[in-house]
């Protein structure tokens, strides 16, 4: 049922309905809406029941193991939510005087400091609202840097072919051309290809390390030296920071600018698609271009820095201060981890990934890079199953749903055929990993003996496999506009 199907014309929620004697007489008729907007007219109970029922149709961390590679689906502590939603935080207008926000600003300032420390960068801005916006801020800063030096011939950003789609999309939004760099057979950047590509036209290189292939880029120092020598800068896509937190820092690897995905590494909720938060960190080179606002401190007082304080800023990215409430959640999480807890995240997410990789290998699954350590994630390829049994990664993914597991990331990165990118995270138990291996093994057997079971999956979900072609061809993007039933 769609909420509109529950609606009846004239139904009103009186408890939410302000009684007012005010009129709109002073608003010219031609600016007044003629016909009421078609919104559902349902009771509060109907709405509560409908959305509660809908929620139950979701898999989520709170209900299922969710080993979605590159997404870091770890436990989102409930305390982060309830404390970030204290009335004092919710009620703060973003443009209220700093004197009315010292509590909030203290958290933000401390968060900036903690993120500086874990990334090894000189300064952090919390402004970007997700990873992709962090990337934008980063590449725009690189551009501002070159522009400030009148080094305007650099029109190219180098990006490994394993990179996330946001990387090339971002480079283009910043007015750059994208040059793809191949990956070698061990999952590292093809160093020769990189060497050949670097040149005076190179504005910078975007790199994810550990990469989206689930391996650590071992020649990172050489890569950094190469790019820097050519006058380019290095951008670090921090989506995989979880794997190395407290072990090794992007700043120390030689990166000039980095974004973090707080909704991954710092466990803020994914919310069915967002909001996230993508703070950027920079070294000295890019300090003058940091996006605003940034929280500063004078004596004991916190203050919001704007274009007056950072005149060369690459600019503003949001109407106010980014996803403040998400930043609060990340702050709370970071304080609960502390210095001791942060490094353990890297350790135990890596332990879980390597264990799961080993167990799946033992169960007969083919690894994309069997001679490499897993980082916090790793890749299984089902190309054999696809070829020999005609059972694809998509089929495996759907069948996993039936067995009570959210599927890993499928078909990404693009260069590994029929791949599953598996990221268990540090918050899952060994028992869960073992059970997941058992489920994968079951499906493997089914694929061999009873392939229909897999190719027809799922069978236990609210719907069976959906017709995506139809969805794109016969566009149905909204409930037809009409009136609520009488």
């Amino acid at each position, binding site marked *: 049922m769609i909420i509109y199907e529950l609606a009846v014309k004239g139904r009103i929620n009186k408890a939410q309905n302000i009684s007012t004697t005010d009129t709109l007489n002073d608003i010219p008729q031609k600016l*007044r809406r003629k016909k009421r907007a078609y919104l559902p007219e349902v009771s509060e109970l109907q709405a509560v029941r409908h959305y509660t029922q809908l929620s139950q149709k979701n898999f*989520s961390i*709170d209900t299922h193991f969710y080993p979605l590679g590159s997404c870091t689906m770890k436990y989102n502590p409930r305390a982060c939510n309830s404390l970030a939603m204290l009335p004092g935080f919710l009620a703060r*207008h973003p*443009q209220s005087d700093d004197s009315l926000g010292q509590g909030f600003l203290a958290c933000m300032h401390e968060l900036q400091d903690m993120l500086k420390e874990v990334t090894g960068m000189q300064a952090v801005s919390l402004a970007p609202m997700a990873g992709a916006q962090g990337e934008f801020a980063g590449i725009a800063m690189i551009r501002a840097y070159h522009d400030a030096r009148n080094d305007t011939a650099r029109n190219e950003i180098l990006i490994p072919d394993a990179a996330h789609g*946001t990387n090339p999309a971002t480079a283009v939004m910043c007015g750059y051309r994208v040059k793809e760099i191949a990956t070698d057979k061990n999952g590292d950047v093809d160093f020769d290809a990189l060497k050949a590509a670097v040149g005076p036209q190179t504005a910078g290189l975007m790199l994810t390390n550990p990469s989206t292939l689930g391996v650590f880029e071992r020649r990172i120092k050489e890569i950094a030296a190469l790019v820097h020598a050519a006058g380019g800068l290095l951008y670090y896509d921090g989506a995989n920071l979880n794997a190395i937190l407290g072990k090794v820092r992007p700043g120390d690897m030689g990166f000039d600018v980095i974004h973090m995905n707080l909704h991954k590494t710092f466990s803020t909720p994914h919310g069915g698609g967002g909001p996230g938060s993508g703070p950027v960190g920079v070294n000295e080179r890019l300090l003058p271009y940091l996006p605003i606002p940034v929280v500063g401190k004078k004596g004991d007082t916190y203050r919001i820095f704007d274009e007056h304080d950072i005149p060369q800023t690459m600019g503003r990215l949001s109407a106010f201060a980014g996803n403040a409430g998400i930043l609060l959640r990340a702050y709370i999480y970071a304080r609960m981890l502390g210095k001791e807890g942060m490094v353990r995240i890297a350790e135990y997410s890596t*332990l879980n990934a390597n264990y799961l990789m080993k167990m799946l290998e033992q169960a007969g699954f083919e690894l994309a890079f069997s001679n490499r350590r897993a980082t916090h994630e790793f890749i299984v390829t089902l190309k054999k199953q696809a070829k020999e049994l005609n059972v694809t990664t998509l089929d495996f993914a759907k069948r996993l749903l039936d067995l009570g597991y*959210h599927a890993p990331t499928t078909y990404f990165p693009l260069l590994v055929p029929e791949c599953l990118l598996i990221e268990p995270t540090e918050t899952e138990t060994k028992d869960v990993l073992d059970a997941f291996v058992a489920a994968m093994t079951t499906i493997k057997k089914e694929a061999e003996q009873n392939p229909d079971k897999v190719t027809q999956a799922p069978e236990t979900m609210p719907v069976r496999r959906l017709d995506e072609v139809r969805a794109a061809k016969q566009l149905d993007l909204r409930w037809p506009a009409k009136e609520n039933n009488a």
Partner: protein
Amino acid sequence: MPFIPHTDYEVKEMLNAIGADNIEELFDEIPAELKISELKNIPSQLTEMEISRLMHERANQDNTPICFAGGGAYDHHIPAAVWEIATRGEFYSAYTPYQAEASQGSLQVIYEYQSMIANLTSLDASNASLYDGASALAEATLMAVRANRKSKSKRILVPRTVNPVYRKVTHTLVKNQGIKLEELNFDLQQGLIDMASLPAEPGDITAVVIPLPNYFGVLENVDELTDWAHKHGALVIAVVNPISLSILTPPGEWGEKGADIACGEGQPLGIPMSSGGPYFGFLTCKQALVRQMPGRIVGRTLDLDGKPGFTLTLQAREQHIRRSKATSNICTNQGLMVTAATIYMAIMGPDGLEKTAIASHGNNKKMLEKLTSKKSITRTFNQSFFHESVINIAADNASVLKKLAANNIVGGINLKSDYPELGDAILVCATEKRTVKEIDFFTEQLATAIAS
């Protein structure tokens, strides 16, 4: 270990299985010289009890002042059910619905959201959200450039009556793509775009941005502006307040043909002010422009049994498929906020939304009357408004606002740096939540602050 379930025994078993002696060994591919031994400048871990104490202290420190500020973030009532449901684990801790069959909850919510916001703006299609109102305007201009194939100029006219931060953000986000944002000035008496000032021969314009209400709370002549833009081959991008659309002409009905794209800040629809975010940007458009939309879109389709279901669609526009040729780099959007807004709209219904708009408008009117009963306070513009207005005060507005803050009042937004020509001007707002008592209190405090 906070949030890590492993026992020593399990760790040993797991290392055994891997064939490693200790966890550190798992990091042996990282060059040794890069490794750090400790995160020195991070405080030690706190228990939940300790962080709770700290956060309660900090939240109490910020208090809950009476809010007369708007400017893009509004203090509306939010039914309790909205967040009690939106923060249910199944919504809160799910990812983007990539596995449609296991995400029908989130997907249907987005489909319902798309339907509601399309209806509110009287346009055909909506995406699943953008980051916020400001970045939505930037995406709308990029979309207009892609969509207006007839125009080559990449010139976008942006009135100065559009929220100045939206203009700055748009500039930041589009400037590297050769797009030119050109300002339109406003009338100092009326606080809106002077139709007479529009050029008779504007040349090739790609799009015109039209706000309703504008940043000053004033209602622009949207019909005339829309028709003028269309006449000159430009697309029309509406920047609108969603609550106001329950009483004001929706973009789809502006002028002869209606606006082509509408965008704005979703915060008024059930999202707390919370220091500025997370909010969400909405974006709707005419059917013909759908494939130029940035961001995720949910479609309704059928499953193997012919039963209706929901899935992400038109993904070929997006970065994870199209990479450098995507309509935008956006990936993670503001899903949970859209969930909350959908529940909000369902609970309020058309009547509840309308009453909220009327009461907000009425309160602003009452507030203006009260305020201007003081000699030291005058109204800056003489045109119809929605629920906020600009006032001029007979004192330095920055120091007056500071004094009000000391009395636990957020007295409005200082316009001096963005609109120096307006003098000591403050943008004030009264939503449906403000009471007569609060308005009286504000008036007296403001008058006192001006006088002192």
